[in-house]
């Protein structure tokens, strides 16, 4: 499974437990109201946050307010079919970290994803 694979949303939804933790990019899965359901090891290590303390929290309000804007949170909320990549800057552990984000959402899929790859 690669960051820019086509049909990645289906693959992520179907991935067995533990498989997402082997990926070389961050995977954040959210339910329809923005609560964190998936937070893989790569992402937890980069942000230096423990998965258990992130799961069940509201991602854009309580974990990563830096993505609570028109480029990320609003698009995920507004667009029912979304597969978009954008350059972005995150601040993992208060350091400027250029990344590529991929936003995934599709009709018929309950879960939405934010994927993070360091560029």
């Amino acid at each position, binding site marked *: 499974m690669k960051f820019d694979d086509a049909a990645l949303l289906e693959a992520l939804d179907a991935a067995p437990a533990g498989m997402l933790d082997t990926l070389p990019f961050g995977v954040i899965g959210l339910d329809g109201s923005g609560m964190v359901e998936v937070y893989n090891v790569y992402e937890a290590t980069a942000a230096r946050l423990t998965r258990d303390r992130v799961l069940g929290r509201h991602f854009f309000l309580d974990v990563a307010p830096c993505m609570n804007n028109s480029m990320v949170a609003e698009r995920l909320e507004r667009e029912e079919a979304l597969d978009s990549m954008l350059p972005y800057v995150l*601040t993992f552990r*208060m350091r400027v970290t250029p990344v590529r984000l991929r936003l995934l959402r599709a009709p018929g899929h309950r879960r939405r994803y934010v994927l993070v790859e360091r560029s």
Partner: protein
Amino acid sequence: MNPAEASSEDDADAEYEALLRFLYTCPHGMAQFAADGTVLMLNPAFSCLVMPLLPPGTMFSNLLDALAPCAPELRRLLRDDQPARGTLCDGLRLHLGPAPDGRDPRVLSLTVVRMDADRHMAVLSDISAQVANERRLRESDAWFAALVQGANDYAMLGLDPEGRVSEWNSSGERLFGYAAASALGASAAGLVTPAERGGNSQDALLERLAVSLRDGWHLDDGWRARADGSRFWGTCIVSALPEGEGGSTRFLMVVRDTTERRSTAEELRRALTTDHLTGALNRRAFFEQGIDLVRRARDSAGSAAVLMVDVDHFKRVNDCHGHAAGDEALRTVARALRDALPEGGLLCRLGGEEFGVLLPGADIETGAKVAEQLRRQVAGTPAQKGETVLVLTASFGLATLTPDASTLEKLLADADAALYRAKRDGRNRVCVAGAEAPVTRVRAAS
């Protein structure tokens, strides 16, 4: 590792993580940077505030490069000659200009503290809403001050959510001339937003109601219509009232007749542009209009002429008959000049007994003809002060726009030189710049 150590290590980890979360979720931007602007550490809010300022595709790594375009003083503040440590700026406002989506202009507040030569802390906050609120507060202060200062009259009425008049009283009847029976239930658009050409006054009213719902109130100045079809200039404020029992919003509208204040403004404008003795334009207005005239004529390759006029032997009038007679003489000359002025001509008093005339569109023949008319009018209009009747004359210098004289300055100098010749050659005559022969040869009246 014994269990106690493991647990204290877990505690330290948990604390470190809590600290990170604290910084990740802080709503204010915080950053640490070096003297050259290089960012050492920053929290997400800081990066979110700065990113929109960067040209597309630019990596954010230098605070100075990112903020200097909207805070030019920042580089100076960070120079070495500033304090070695301490606050370098506190709440410095960065005005980012209007927001593209029509929201309030974006304003950031920046505080920078220097720890040592190479370590600075910056705090950055978005204060757009606060600044916009301050502005609205100032406007509402101005409004309430205006409300208690003399308006000619005012009316207070209630509106329903569709902008129909739901409450009407004697103040409305007085100001607008409608009886309650015809006002109630009608849209207030007919009162406060007389249909502009092609505009929809009902839409304009509903938009105001929407704004007052959002901001608490809406204020504007404009024409208002009375029942008899006449109009008056008035200030109108609409404020949304707390929801009534039925759960629907009501609006309070106050309209003040400010016609008088508007005419005061007109008087002020006149006071600023006219000479109080003669009613002619003053010097300031003359130069403004003159520059404008020359520019328009040059742009359209048209003509323009300037006349300098000087009352003959004016010192003698003052000396023999007193200043009151002198003033009357000036008023009489100004009136005579104005009476004979062609359409579009402008008369100005340049000082003492000297006048200037601007003649848009006039070439040398027209200018000379007009000057001659003015000269005759002045000579034929004696001034009267008490028993004294004063026969007055004036001398005229004419200059017109030519390739050699294409600025107001040059025109005035040429007209002045022609006026000097008219004086030297015996007064009560018109001389034209560049022409040797005077237009008129009349024996000067004494």
